[in-house]
Every structure is written in structure tokens, then in C-alpha cells.
């Protein structure tokens, strides 16, 4: 008699195959998620440091021979801090060594000092200990990103420089603080000064243009296609076009933008206007597809009710159907905008790769965007920029998470209304 509980060798083999197959599935999911976790972990662990910066405490002489208390702005602040450094390390004398010594502080040390004095003019006339931003190498060394054990000519700091840092450390003259400058500065060639403000502003302006163009056009197009379009060749063509546009590589949109917006219409190169327009063309299909789906989800009984009262089709649509579909449309829009926010390649094509220090004042001025800033920093040679890049990615991801959460919440809240 054959067993129903499957003890035959054949059954056992098949059962094993079944188990194996299930494990393949679990393995695939695990591998994908492990990759995700590894990527996020390496970016977050590598980028958190950039939110903190190192200060060196240095005693500077603000005596009257250096600063005129009546006119503190006229003082030679560069000379003051450099003298202070020299005094701190009297044994350093050669020019080459001195240059290295001055390099210990950030490139904007004199402005920092001036800011200290302006903020508290009472310190003028005395000797005071003030914090100065350390250079990116010092910062990297203290964060453990420069290996002391590696041979001297293979690392960005000499033994002597490391000894100076240790000297500061031994005196307790090293402080860590939150790097506000990362959020309040624009790009810079000096890693310790580089921040994302200009890129954030550029992204914001670009997104603004993108939203203002794509949102109305997409809604109106979706309403036409879903509510009014006759079923003919033209509607089919539009439909096919929208589906295809959604899958066209983003760089092709960049080429379109370069040729049409910059070379033909003469929009300013590198401007948020051009960037936003290009991105809006990419976002259109996403929003249209989402908007059509949510218009389709409005029950026909609502349309019938309005039309039965003698509302015109336009009234029925704009008074009743479109408002009901709005949450769904907004969800789709947020998702589309989130995609646009992370988009890089088309912006490269229209020249938003420029080196931008200042916050753009208008959508016509040269600007860059956060993902482009990431791309630029990723390519920079200094070790400190790796950290900055990761930090910029963290900021970008936080924005994306917020947007997607908003979309999810909106969807949850309005999901079952009818």
C-alpha cells in the first residue's frame, strides 16, 4: 500500500526540492534587502561625521596694537591669527613649515576671527582664547579617517602636522560641534567650508518650476483623457505616447532640454527655469497616469447625480469628480516630484553642474541641485568630500522619505471614501 504521508524516496526528494525552492525565494529577498541595508549603512555611517566639525582653540592677541577699538573692521585679522599660531609653535620658522602650520586652520580663519570680534566688541584689547574651524585634514585625522600608521608620503598629513594636532589635543584645545556651516554655506573648493545651502535652494527653485508646470498640465490632460476624450485614433496615440514617455531614459529629456530650451528658446543655461521645465516633462507622464487612475476610481454614480440635475459635463467634472480624485492626484504628484528631486542626468545636460557658491536669487540665475552637488562632490579628490557626499545623500534621502511618507499617509487617509 502506498503511504499517504509521503515516506517514499520519491516523495522525500520532491519535498526536499520544494523546501529548496522556497529557500531560493527567501534568499533572493534577503539578498536584495541585505544590499539595501549595506548601502544605507555605509552611506549613513560614512556621512554622519560631516554633520560635526572640529574647532581648534587658539589664544589670539587682540591688543590695541592689533585692533583699533574705534574701528575694529580695519584690523588685519589674518596677521593676528597667524601671529597667534606662530606664537603657539615658536619652534616653527621656515616658510614651508609656516605654510603648513597656517594650513591647520580653515580657509576662512580671518573671517571667523572678525565675526568673533564683531559679535562681541568687548573682547578687543585683550588676549582671548577663541575657537577656529580646523582644516579638513585635521578634521579627518581626528575623525579617524586618516591612518596614522600608514607611511608619511602616502597620507595627506605629515608627521609634523600630526604632532601639532596632538599638541592641541594634549592641551584640551580641540572641540567638536554641530556643523551648521554644512547647511548655511554654498559649495566651496575647501571641504571644511563646503555646504549644501546653494544646492538646496537650487533644488527648491527647480522643483517649484517643475510643480507649477507639470501639476496643472497633467491634471487637465488626465481629466480630458478620462472624462471627455472621444475614443478615436488621436486619443489612442496620446495614450501610447504617455506610456512610452514614462519609460524614456532621463538623459534623453536632458538632450531635448539642451536643444529646445537652451539653444532654440534661449533660456538661461544652468538655470532652475530650464531644469524645472525638463524635469516637468519627465514628471508629466507619472502624474497623468496616477491622476487617470484616481479619476477612474470616482464612482460613476457621482457623475450621474450631477448630470441628472442638469449640470454640464464640465460642471460635473470640476465640481464633483475632480475634487474627489484630488487626494489620489496629489499622491501621484508627490511621488512624481520625489522622482524629479533625485534626478541628475538631465540636469547635467542643461549645465546645472556649475560650481555654485551663492544661493540663486531667481529661477533665471545659474544654480545647481542637490543630486548634482552629490555627483560633483563624489568626484572631488579630497577625503573630506567623501564624507560630505554621504551627508548630502542623507539629506536627500530624508527629503525623499518625508515626501513618500506624505504620499502614503494621504493615500491611507483617503483610500476608502466611497
Amino acid at each position: 500500500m502506498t503511504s499517504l504521508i509521503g515516506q517514499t524516496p520519491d516523495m522525500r526528494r520532491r519535498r526536499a526540492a520544494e523546501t529548496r525552492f522556497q529557500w531560493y525565494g527567501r534568499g533572493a529577498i534577503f539578498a536584495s534587502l541585505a544590499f539595501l541595508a549595506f548601502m544605507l549603512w555605509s552611506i549613513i555611517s560614512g556621512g554622519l561625521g560631516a554633520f560635526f566639525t572640529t574647532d581648534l582653540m587658539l589664544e589670539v592677541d587682540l591688543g590695541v596694537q592689533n585692533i583699533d577699538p574705534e574701528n575694529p573692521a580695519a584690523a588685519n585679522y589674518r596677521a593676528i591669527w597667524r601671529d597667534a599660531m606662530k606664537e603657539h609653535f615658536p619652534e616653527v620658522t621656515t616658510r614651508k613649515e609656516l605654510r603648513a602650520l597656517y594650513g591647520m586652520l580653515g580657509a576662512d580663519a580671518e573671517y571667523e576671527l572678525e565675526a568673533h570680534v564683531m559679535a562681541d566688541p568687548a573682547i578687543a584689547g585683550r588676549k582671548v582664547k577663541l575657537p577656529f574651524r580646523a582644516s579638513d585634514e585635521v578634521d579627518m585625522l581626528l575623525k579617524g579617517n586618516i591612518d596614522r600608521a600608514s607611511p608619511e608620503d602616502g597620507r595627506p598629513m605629515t608627521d609634523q602636522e600630526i604632532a601639532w594636532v596632538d599638541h592641541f589635543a594634549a592641551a584640551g584645545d580641540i572641540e567638536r560641534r554641530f556643523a551648521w556651516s554644512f547647511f548655511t554655506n554654498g559649495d566651496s573648493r575647501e571641504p571644511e567650508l563646503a555646504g549644501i545651502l546653494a544646492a538646496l535652494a537650487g533644488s527648491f527653485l527647480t522643483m517649484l518650476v517643475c510643480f507649477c508646470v507639470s501639476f496643472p498640465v497633467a491634471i487637465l490632460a488626465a481629466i480630458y483623457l478620462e472624462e471627455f476624450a472621444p475614443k478615436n485614433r488621436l486619443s489612442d496615440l496620446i495614450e501610447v505616447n504617455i506610456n512610452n514617455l514614462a519609460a524614456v531614459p532621463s538623459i534623453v529629456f536632458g538632450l531635448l532640454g539642451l536643444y529646445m530650451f537652451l539653444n532654440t528658446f534661449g533660456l538661461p543655461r544652468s538655470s532652475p527655469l530650464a531644469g524645472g521645465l525638463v524635469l516637468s516633462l519627465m514628471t508629466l507622464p507619472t502624474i497623468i497616469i496616477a491622476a487617470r487612475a484616481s479619476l477612474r476610481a470616482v464612482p460613476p454614480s457621482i457623475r450621474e447625480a450631477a448630470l441628472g440635475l442638469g449640470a454640464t459635463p464640465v460642471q460635473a467634472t470640476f465640481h464633483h469628480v475632480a475634487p474627489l480624485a484630488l487626494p489620489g492626484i496629489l499622491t501621484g504628484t508627490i511621488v512624481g516630484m520625489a522622482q524629479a528631486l533625485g534626478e541628475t542626468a538631465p540636469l547635467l545636460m542643461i549645465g546645472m553642474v556649475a560650481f555654485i557658491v551663492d544661493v540663486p536669487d531667481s529661477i533665471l540665475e545659474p544654480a545647481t541641485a542637490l543630486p548634482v552637488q552629490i555627483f560633483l562632490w563624489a568626484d572631488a579628490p579630497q577625503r573630506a568630500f567623501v564624507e560630505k557626499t554621504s551627508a548630502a545623500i542623507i539629506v536627500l534621502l530624508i527629503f525623499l522619505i518625508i515626501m513618500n511618507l506624505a504620499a502614503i499617509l494621504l493615500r491611507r487617509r483617503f483610500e476608502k471614501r466611497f
Partner: protein
Amino acid sequence: MAGTREPVIVARDVNVHYADKQALFKIALDIPEKEVTSLIGPSGCGKSTFLRCINRMNDLVDSARFEGQITIAGQNIYAPDVDVVALRREVGMVFQKPNPFPKSVYDNVAYGPKIHGLAQSKADLDGLVQWSLEKAGLWDEVRDRLNEPALGLSGGQQQRLCIARTIAVKPKVVLMDEPCSALDPVATARIEDLIDELRQNFSIVIVTHSMQQASRVSQLTAFFHLGKLVEAGRTKNIFTSPQDERTQNYITGRIG
């Protein structure tokens, strides 16, 4: 014909096709003014189709094709110069499932008068809303919750709200497609009373599956079968002495 009032709606030679399938065959029917006419017949016989021809709701179905003539107060509603929007203002409709707008009670009733410019002032509009809700027998229940969402009302209340919404634009004719089929017996009884009252102001056409309902609320009854109008006449005649065997079978429950 004795005792019958003037017909407000006259349908002649009405044929309707859905794509290749014919749903109505040469329908000819008079619907009198300020009385209730009920359309009965087995499922799929074309009652809804005929009803929806009267306010041209069938225009919304792409595959539907209309032939023949329907006049309202002497005007052919399928004439080329007719504006369907104006027609639907004159011929209101109440649907099978209550379908209030997801807005407040007040906004539901006020919507029609607003788009047609029937009220000159806010006070006018308030008065019209109150009149409609009173006519629909709902005023006492909702007077304190006019600004609450209509979807919070019970099913029966929602259906009366839909009736109030329809009569707020003061149409000549009110069409009702199985208005009670989604309601319980108590709510149904209320609506039936209401229909009887509305008869004073409006001409009403109602589709129903309930023989009792037809005999209770209507003065005239038309029996449809397989897309044809088999028999029409005073309700009491139809139910007591039907001329056609199919009518006889249907009202005694042997077909349908």
C-alpha cells in the same frame, strides 16, 4: 382614456440598440401629467433603458443608439437643437442606489439651484433648500445637521435627500429607477408616501420590481417584456383585469 389627464410625455416608435443588441422595440407610451406612472417587468426587459431615454442619460453610454421620438410638453427632446442640459433640468432623476455628493446636506440640495441660478440671494437659496427638504419629508430630521456630511445619513434619509436634491430645481418630471430597492421596509414606506405627495407638483415615472409598490403608488402602469411594451393602462385595471396573458403571468408570479 376616460379620466386620464393630459400626457406630458409622449413616446412613439422608440427603438434602442446597445451596439448590435436591440434593447427596446417600438415603444409607444403616454405619460400623464401630475400622476405616477410605474414601469414593471422582468429583469433586463428594458425599463431602465426606457427611463433613461426620457432625460437622455443614455447618451452617456457610448454604445447606445436611439431611434424614434419622445416629446415633453410638445417638444421633441431628440431634436437637434435641444440642449440636454436644459432637458435634464426639466426631467430630474432619482437613482437606484442613493448617491448623495460627499458634501454637506445643505450643499447637496443647494447645488442644483446654484448652477441654474434659481436663487437670487442666500435667503432665497435657504428657503428653496428648506422647501425641498420639507417636500421630501426630511426637514425635521436634518434641520439641525444641514452642515454635516450627507454620507452620515441613513440609507433611507440619503434617498430622500436625493429626492429633495432633484425637486430643488423644480423639474417638470421626476424619473425614479427602483428608488427603494436598497432600502428597508420602513424607509420604503416613507418614500412611497412621499411619492404620493409629490404627485401634486410633479409628474413621476417610477421603475419598480414590486407589484405591491406599483399598485400602491401609481395611477398608471406599463408592463415591459423582452424590450416590448406589452400593456399599459390604469393601474387598477392592469392588476385586476390584464388583457395580455404575459401580464397575467407576470403579476401572478409565473414569469420574471
